[in-house]
Each structure stands twice: as C-alpha cells, then as structure tokens.
C-alpha cells in the first residue's frame, strides 16, 4: 500500500537545465565519479583523478590512482571507489592513506560525504548506504526506486543520479524511505555517472562514456 501510494505520488519529470559542459579531457575515455573540493571539480577517469577549475574549465591537477566509480571529498581527503574498496587519498601527494571495503563489494557506483559519513550508491541494487568512513561499517541503508549512479547531499537534500536504458534523471529522494521528491530529466542519451553539488546552486554530473562533466542548475527550493 505504502509503496503504491508513493509511486502514484511520484512528481512530474522536469527537464534538467544544463549550464555548462566540460571536457572531454585528454586521455580520459569516460567519467566514473565527480566531487568538488570548494574550488576545484575532481573527476575519476579510470586510471587518473583529474581536477579542473569550474570557472575557467582549465586543468588544475592530476593524480594517478585507480578510480572506477564514485568520488567524494571530506574537506581534507579525497575518497575514491576502486574495484571493491574505497581509498582515502591525500590530494596533495596522491598517496592512499587508508582503504576500507566498499559496502557493495564492487557493485558500488556513486559516493558522497556528509555529516561525518560516506554515502555510497549500489547501482543495480538501487541502494544508498551510509557507512563509517573509518571502518566501512554500514550504518543504515536507503532503498531507492531506481538504479543509483551518483549520490550527493546539499542543504539537507539527498540527490542521486539514475541511468537506465541510456536515459538518466536527477532525483531528490526522501532519506527516510527513498521516496522520490523531485525529478529532473537529462536530455536523451545524456547520462549521469557521478554527481556532486558545489554546495550552492549547481550540480556537477559525470557523463559516462561521453567523457564530459556537466554543470546542472539545482532548482530553487520547489518542494
């Protein structure tokens, strides 16, 4: 009954407003995850994390490391999903200072940092786990209705990207029960493979095999 009601109540799809596109970047075939450190946008490209200045689009940094899925930033360190683990990386040196097992054991996609926890999407299992960044212990799990690619928190809102059938949406979900509160549709063939908020009114979305990162406007508090 509850799931039926929430399904019926699912909000209408609105088109996402893409503000700007970055890339594709040299030697980066695809984007697996994105994060924002306050100044720069970081993007995981498989074998290298690259950083660019979102204002100019100029490359700012590059760290060689395995980066297969989501990326997050806690104010000091970068967190990066690689194969079935999460590496904690010093952005100055590129050194991996710690590793914890990824909660999805390799089925992990997006990742975000918020309120002292890491939030990790489990792609086809439609889950978002809140985990302890020190141990990797799962603290709680949110069930979404859709495949989860990127995950991000902004102003107490939990957003995640979906990618099914070569169609992607940006969803705001209720962290309590995973109910969809807001839906932004990406144009056909434009996919989301990683998501991060800049803390203000923009999202950065990885574009999968397009190799691009896109800035998407966050709707003004609609709900």
């Amino acid at each position: 009954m509850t799931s039926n009601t929430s399904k019926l109540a699912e909000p209408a799809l609105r088109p996402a407003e893409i503000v700007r596109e970055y890339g594709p970047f040299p030697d980066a075939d695809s984007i697996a995850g994105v994060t924002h450190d306050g100044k720069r946008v970081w993007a995981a490209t498989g074998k290298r994390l690259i950083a660019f200045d979102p204002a100019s689009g100029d490359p700012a940094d590059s760290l060689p490391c395995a980066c297969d899925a989501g990326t997050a930033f806690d104010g000091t360190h970068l967190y990066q999903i690689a194969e079935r683990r999460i590496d904690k990386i010093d952005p100055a040196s590129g050194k991996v200072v710690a590793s914890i097992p990824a909660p999805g054991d390799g089925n992990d996609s997006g990742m975000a940092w918020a309120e002292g926890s890491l939030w990790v999407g489990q792609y086809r299992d439609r889950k978002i786990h809140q985990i302890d960044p020190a141990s990797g212990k799962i603290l709680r799990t949110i069930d979404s209705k859709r495949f989860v690619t990127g995950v991000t928190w902004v102003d107490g809102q939990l957003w995640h990207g979906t990618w099914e059938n070569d169609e992607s949406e940006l969803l705001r979900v209720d962290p309590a029960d995973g109910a969809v509160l807001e839906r932004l549709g990406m144009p056909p063939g434009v996919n989301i493979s990683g998501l991060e908020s800049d803390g203000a009114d923009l999202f950065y979305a990885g574009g999968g095999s397009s190799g691009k990162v896109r800035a998407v406007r966050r709707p003004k508090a609609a709900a």
Partner: protein
Amino acid sequence: MDSLTAAAAKALAAGDALGALKHVALRDDPPALALRGIAMAQLGEHPRARELLKRAARGFGSHEALARARCVVAEAEVALAMRDLGGTPRALMAAVTALEAHDDHANAVHARLIAVRKLLLLGQLDAAETELSHLNGRPLPPALAATAELASAELGLRSLNVAPARAALERAHAAAQRARVPALLAEVEEARSALSHPAARQLSAGNARALRLDEVADLLDSDALVIDGCRRGICAGAQWQPLARRPVLFALARVLAEAWPGDIDRETLIDNAFNTQQPDETHRARLRVEIGRLRALLRPMAEIVATPRGFVLRPLDGREVALLAPPIDGEQASLIALLSDGAAWSTSALALALNASQRTVQRALAELEADGRVRAIGRTRTRRWLAPPLAGYTTILLLPAALQMA
C-alpha cells in the same frame, strides 16, 4: 556502471580479457554476464560466450531494452563466428529496431552487417544485397565501414562485377587501416590477393591461357561468344543462356566451341554428349533433336549449321568464339567453379550440371569439404553446398561497444 564492472570494462577495452574476467568472474548480474561473455568471445571460447550473452540478454529488465539489444547483437556475432547459421533473424532485427529507437546507430549498423554476413554465408545473395543497401550513404565507423565494403566486394566478385568489387576492396583497405584492427586488415589483403589468382582458363586450338577474375570479366564483357565451362552457360555481350540444368546441351556446345572455326563430326558429338563409344541410329536421331534444342536456345547469339560430316558453330555478327574452363582440370575444379557464384547448390543440382552421378559429386564434395574448400549448410535433403567466402572475414568479432553494456 558500478566499480567492478567499470574496472572490468576498462581491462577489456585495453585488451586484457583475463583481467576483466578476474573482476566479474563470480558475478551473475546482467552487465557482469555481458562483460564475461565478451571476454570469453575474445578468448575464443565461443559456446561459453554465447551462453553468457544469452543469459545477460534475458537478465536485463524491460526498462533496459538497449542493453538487452546490445547483448543480442553480440550473441548473434558469436553465433556467426561459430558458423551456426540456424535460427531466425527475428531477434536480431528486433534488436536493430531497439537500437535505432535509442539512437545507437553504430550498433544498429553493426547488427545489420551481421545479418548481411549471415545471408552471404547462406548463399542468399539478393537478400544480402537488399540488406546492405539499407546502409548506403550512412557514415560508418572505420571497422564497420571495412566490413560493409568487404561484403559489397564479395557480392561484386560473385556476380563478376570486378571493377566495382575492386573499388570496394580499396575502400575496405583504407577503412581497415583507419580502424587499426590487424585481423581485419589481413582479411582485406587476402581478399585483394584473390583478385590476382587465376580464376579460369581460356582454351583455344589446344592451348590454355590462365585468366584472372578481371580478365574473365573482360572476356565476358567483350563481343565474343563465350562458352563458359565455369558457370555452365553461354554468353554473348549482355545475353546469358544458362545451361547448368541442360548438361547434354552444354556438352554439345563445348565440343562445337573446341572445334571452332571448323566443324565437328557426329561421332565425337555423340561420344561427348551421350557418353557412348558405339553410336547407332537412335543416337544419331537423338543428336538431331538435341542440336535442334541448342539451336533454338542459341538463336539470338549463334547458328548451328549442318556440314557433310557433322555441325559447325557460326556466331552472329562475326563474333569470335571463346571457351572458358575452370583453372585446373577435374571434377573438383568444376565443382568449385560452379559454386563460385556464391549461391547455395544442392548435390543433385551439381550432379545435373556436371552430368555426373550424385555419388561421384558427393565424393568430390566430401574431399573438398575436408580441405575447407567448400562448405555445407543444412542436413540430409536440405543440405546445400557453398564456396567459402572470398573475403574470409566472418570470424572477426568486432562486438558492440563493451563500455556501454551496463
């Protein structure tokens, strides 16, 4: 895509099939099954690859039509590489529709080319040509362009349109170089070299001259009356009279052509056409009947005139007479010459064309098949025989883009 799938796809794209398998070996979710299937295909484990791709296609949900279609295409390509030509094209055509609906044009073209290659292998040349014409004028990625041009060259060579076939091969070569797939380039080279091999002999006054395929085409295009012992028929300019189902008439025409411009005696004609050394009056009567039939068929191209001791061939409009024979003598060479039209022949049709017993033909076909010089499709009464493709490209797996499987 999740992290291990991404890691596996990355390994696969770098050509590391074993590394890819290591990442997803124990996983049974559809994207992992698809990647495992593609890795197995690249390792040459075709039956296993097919099974995995089938399971992957089944596993994708109804909201994942695109991923499912890509798996169907990959599976069809593996089946083609295994030379498993059974089954209907329905699933593949449904995949084409799904791919086009999602603007995945590269994989849709890829799927259509798999259908074309399958039709070529089945000897259904007209259907292959129709399917190939759907791709005309579309921009294709280099590897697919090379495959399409190879198919087009194959069709051209089968119908002796050598100049367009040569042009298609040159375009295939350029595209294969751009694609940088070494196996593809090697197969284009091989197809090109087939053009320089002797394809037939021209017999005249006891002398034989080896002809390449383009020389055969030139001869058929020329004004000469060509008694074609390769395709079993008679050609004059644009006119073509097939005699594959009239072996007696063809034997008579060949003997008349051998004697040209002189005449040939009745005994030799009877001996060659009826396989008898002791002709009697009934044979002479039969010869008159058969000559009458041949005369009627050749009327637009030549006359057959009676002489005191036999008959003489008189082409119209002062044409020359040329006799074409397979590049080497013997039953096997004649069979290969007949099959070089690329169509699917039954054993009985081949036996009829060669005026040989089915057993003789079967024996020769079995030897040729053991050498890989002919192929059979179907079983028992539906068995048909085909020449191997001139461009042997069909074992190359280009496979739909692996990174987009998830």
